[in-house]
């Protein structure tokens, strides 16, 4: 039996918008096993990003239980949570969110800096990653000098550099053309084969098809 990576039990998120209480996520129940590739689907506004952010610990559920690798995230202190998150989770965004002032090389290197990886080790790891994504020649360029697809490659490389167990990708191909999208999805499939667990949010049926399982959301509920 595979290890359970993420386990959501009646996970809920509500916010107060003015005097109204708005439920963004409504009693979500599902488990993610190690090695899965899950596609979250649903129309715009259905809560995909919210769910990814909560799983990624950028945001919190306001109710229910969330267990990550057997540890209860919902009752954890901020500090431990960020340790867990630094160790195991990598993020890929629709808008890439690279740091404009840093080169490709430096962008990829940054997570290692926050993990206090030694300089020599860092060099080797970043070099590996550049090699693997075929962007060695672009390592000294700044993000604005790259195409969207290339920027997303860097974004993924950066998410992977910390060797996370789980990659959360929020519409990673939303800003890309279909050819670029295909390349990125191929890359995800490849990574998944190598053992990385992936949860992606998408509206595209064809992208969703790369996944091993599809979860449909509507108005914050699994349908």
């Amino acid at each position, binding site marked *: 039996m595979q290890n359970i990576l993420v386990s959501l039990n009646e996970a809920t998120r509500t916010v107060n918008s003015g005097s109204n209480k708005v439920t963004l996520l409504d009693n979500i129940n599902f488990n993610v096993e190690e090695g899965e590739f899950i596609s979250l689907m649903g129309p715009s506004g259905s809560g995909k990003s919210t769910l990814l952010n909560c799983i990624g610990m*950028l945001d919190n559920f306001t109710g229910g239980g969330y267990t990550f690798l057997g540890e209860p995230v919902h009752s954890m202190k901020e500090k431990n949570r960020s340790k867990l998150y630094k160790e195991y989770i990598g993020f890929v965004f629709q808008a890439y*969110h690279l740091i404009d*002032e840093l080169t490709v090389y*430096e962008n990829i290197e940054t*997570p290692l800096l*926050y993990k206090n990886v030694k300089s020599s080790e860092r060099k080797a790891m970043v070099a590996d990653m550049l090699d693997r994504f075929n962007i060695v020649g672009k390592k000294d360029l700044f993000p604005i000098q790259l195409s969207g697809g290339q920027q997303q490659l860097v974004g993924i490389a950066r998410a992977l550099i910390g060797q996370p167990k789980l990659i959360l990708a929020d519409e990673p191909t939303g800003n890309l053309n279909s050819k670029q999208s295909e390349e990125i999805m191929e890359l995800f499939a490849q990574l998944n084969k190598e053992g990385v667990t992936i949860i992606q949010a998408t509206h595209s049926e064809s992208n969703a098809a790369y996944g091993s399982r599809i979860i449909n959301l509507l108005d914050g509920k699994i349908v």
Partner: protein
Amino acid sequence: MFKNYIKIALRNLWKNRTFTVLNVVGLTAAFGVAILLAMYAVFQLSFDRFHEHGDALYMVYSEDSTPNGVEANISKSEPFAAALKDEVAGVEKITRYVSTGVLLSQEDKQFGMSTAYVDPDFFNMFSFPIIKGDKTNPIASESSVVMTELATKRIFGDEEPIGQTVSILRDEQQVPFTVTAIVKDSPNTSSMGFDIVLNFKSQNEHAYARTIGRWDMENHEVYMQLAESVQPKQFEKSTTDFTQLHYKNEIDNAKRDGFQPNTDGLYRQLKLLPLADVRFANFNQGPVTVSRTMPYLVLGISTLILFIACVNFINMSIAKSAQRLREIGMRKTLGANKKQLFFQFWGESILVFLISIGLGILLAVFLLPYFQTLFKTQASLATLLNPSLLLVLILSVLLITLIAGGYPALLMSRLGTLQSLKGKLDVNGKNHLRNSLMVLQFGIAILLISGTLVLWDQVEFMRTKDLGFNKDQVIAFPLNGQLNDQQAIELLRNTLQDKPNIVSVTASNNILGLGKDGSRSTSVLGFEHQGRGVETHMVVVDADYIETLDLNIIEGRSFRKNLASDSLSVIINEAMAKQLNEDDILASQIDLDDAVYSVVGVIKDFNFQELDQNIAPMTLFALPNWNLRNAYVKVSSQNLEQAYTDVKAAWNTIEPNAEFQGSFLNENIDRTLRHERTMITMIGSGSILAIILSCIGLFAMSLLIVAQRKKEIGVRKIVGASVSAITILLTKDFLKLVVIAFLIASPIAWWAMHNWLQNYAYRIELNIWMFLGAGGIAVVIAMLTIAVKTIKAATSNPVESLRTE
């Protein structure tokens, strides 16, 4: 990690170069000026603090009850010092002290030397180390002279000075003195400046021999070293018997005349003034007050300027942080914690501060020579190089960077991850801070500007006030040559008599204003009149004094041309007449110990002292063969320069070896205002810098606001807003801040200036225009600053501004 921070910091600074430059320029100017001002203040405060026994050294003065209330008296009599040491416990060492100028000759060369006449204990009390010669008691003999290194160099060059003989002009004779020791040049923070030191008893007849054993002739200062076990207050108390014994007459008379006793109920009390306080003490207005307001004010200005520059930095950092939200959010998702983010942003601030401080130090070094000339100070950056002071400086720089750089860094590091990733920033709260800081900035600027305006008004008032004598046409100079004063005046009269541009020549033992030689003296005379004690300033004059100075006689007559026939006549001023309180003032006489003098005339009061004092009673004497000290020459009003040259030439032929130190009386008056002028220049340049810095901040804010509201401006224009409507929209928020600043600062400025003006007996009335003027200046400058950017934004093509969105 560190490298990464530096890298990103530099790139960020480069990317926002406009703001970086504005910040660095502002902070550099502020640090540069703050360093200079702090240096000046520290220099002033460190005066006379180099003496090893400094904490135990005091000037002895007394609080005397006089007709004008309690007055501080620092002059002591010949027997005083020795008697005090003998009769009161606690006097470790004591010395009398007179500072004056003498004419010293060596072979055929002559030198004007500033001289200290002291008792032998002097060198054991004060730290003026002897580097050569008799180190134990160099002025034991009355024919010994001690010289500074510098004076030795001037007189002897490289020759061996010890044992050499020089002669000093005394009572019209050349008296030989032997050089017994060389003393190190005194540090430039010494109030006691001298070229040579002589035994107190080596003074001329008039100053010393005549006064031996006389308790009523007070003509020098006394300094003492207090025994370690004794507290100054305790010592002051223990002198009561001494005072009762030696000043019995004075005390009885004061009681009889109903004078006001001092706060301890005593009519005469000895007091100790710590040496370091002497320079900051005011002896002219009642009991001694010690005030270090000036150096602290200067320190205050430097702090305010730094504050203004830091406010700019804080405001710009916070405003710019909106543009870095994504970076902040991203770093957080990549695993950065608050601490790491804080240190990153703080590090960037430190970088800016380090650059600015470095440049500021360079700026200070560059400006130093100008600063020294402008403020006539010897303060140098070395003043700040003392370990404890450096520590304070470094700590304050750290504190400034911690607050100015740390506060924005803290705000940024605290932002929520998702919120910042989305690029949303809740700015409402921060605008309050920004607005309050800007109000404070402009408030400070307005405070300083109005201070400058009021100060300037007061100084102009004092400079141009009719003082009651002719200050425009009269040249005064010290009789600093070899001839005795009467001979010198006689020769001067003869030489100048036929010159058409010379009106008259006279002399007196006092100087009006402050002469080029910087020396002044006053003599106050106390005597009994109709059974009451009265006091008057005593001025001894030569013929034509009243005519030369254009003083107005309101009763009686002036002195006769033949002055000898008036040797028992006096002319008094109105204040003195009032004090004598006679029905027929011209029939009255004043009875001094040596003779009875008749009042022959009354002159209108004129300001023979500075304008911080009311006109005191004064009596003019025409005593023969008196020590007259200063010549006064009235010249015709055409071509004053030529007249000055003529007088100078005449003096040079009469005294070829003496320097001509003449100046017009209005220059002398100007010289007395030096302190005020220094203050004006300091506060004035402070206020200019303050307003420039505030405007740099304002300019930066207007840049940011215009950038942020670009789209809004475009839309408004498309729906028909006019250029002026948009300019007003963008400008009014800032102008509101300046107006609030004005409303807050003006009453404070009013209060401060009102208090300051109380120092002057003659002062201007504060009026609302000085403050409105300061506020107006601030508003206009602020408006011009914002106008540059806002009008450009308001006139730009709206389509363009929308397209770039």
